[in-house]
């Protein structure tokens, strides 16, 4: 029961915040709602007993990436952008296409639900304690992808520095 309350609460929070992210006019508010959505997702991770992922989400996503976003927004926040048109001229086409994609996906899940074991409740205690298991998997089986990911981060870091440098 508690589990369900937690899930639906966070799911509703995430969905509402997500809608607000794409509809708010003020970009700072968008960022705040994105943070809310990310934290709600983190709550869902916790409800799924993925503690490590929960904390990674909080530290990296909410605490790291979003700080970067907010930082940049504050550096280049233009009051003018509040008074400009917020949507593309072809927004209706985009919306339509996006909805079609969404409908497709939802259809796929809805159809697949009867075939795949989706509907069954997820087993409760398969992944405990998850931190150790994640660590073993990450540094055992997925060692190479892990290293590649770290190289990706390095490349991104250098790229970002070069991009944002003032005088090249």
């Amino acid at each position, binding site marked *: 029961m508690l589990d369900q309350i937690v899930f639906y609460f966070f799911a509703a929070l995430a969905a509402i915040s997500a809608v607000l992210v794409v509809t708010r006019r003020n970009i700072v508010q968008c960022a705040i709602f994105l943070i809310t959505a990310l934290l709600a997702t983190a709550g869902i991770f916790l409800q799924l007993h993925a503690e490590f992922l929960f904390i990674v989400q909080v530290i*990296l996503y909410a605490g790291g990436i979003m700080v970067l976003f907010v930082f940049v927004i504050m550096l280049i926040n233009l009051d003018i952008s509040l008074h400009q048109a917020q949507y593309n001229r072809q927004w209706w086409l985009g919306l339509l296409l996006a909805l079609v994609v969404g409908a497709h996906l939802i259809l796929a899940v809805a159809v697949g639900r009867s075939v795949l074991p989706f509907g069954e409740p997820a087993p409760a205690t398969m992944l405990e304690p998850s931190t150790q298991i994640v660590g073993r998997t990450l540094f055992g089986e997925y060692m190479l992808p892990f290293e590649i990911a770290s190289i990706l981060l390095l490349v991104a870091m250098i790229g970002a520095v070069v991009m944002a440098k003032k005088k090249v």
Partner: protein
Amino acid sequence: MIPTSHYLFLSLGLFTIGIIGVVTRRNVIIILMSIELMLNAVNINLVAFSRLVGSAEGHVFAIFIITDAAAEAAVGLGIIISFFRNRETLLSDEMDLLKW
């Protein structure tokens, strides 16, 4: 217990909202944020499946995706900053020149 399909529906919902944001908004930062939203939706999916199957691989992939999101945000914001410095705008439909 919550059926896995509910996680999937949530994930799909967030993903679709993200797509809507990407294709309809003009402000590049909001577009970037919508992409983050989509990546996030995928993460929910991965973790829910991971729970269903009872393995940690979904978690591992979610971590990779978060890494990716971090890299993407860093480079994306770097581009936005240098773009802004040159053009004083944040609108995607004004980014229509390959060179200036």
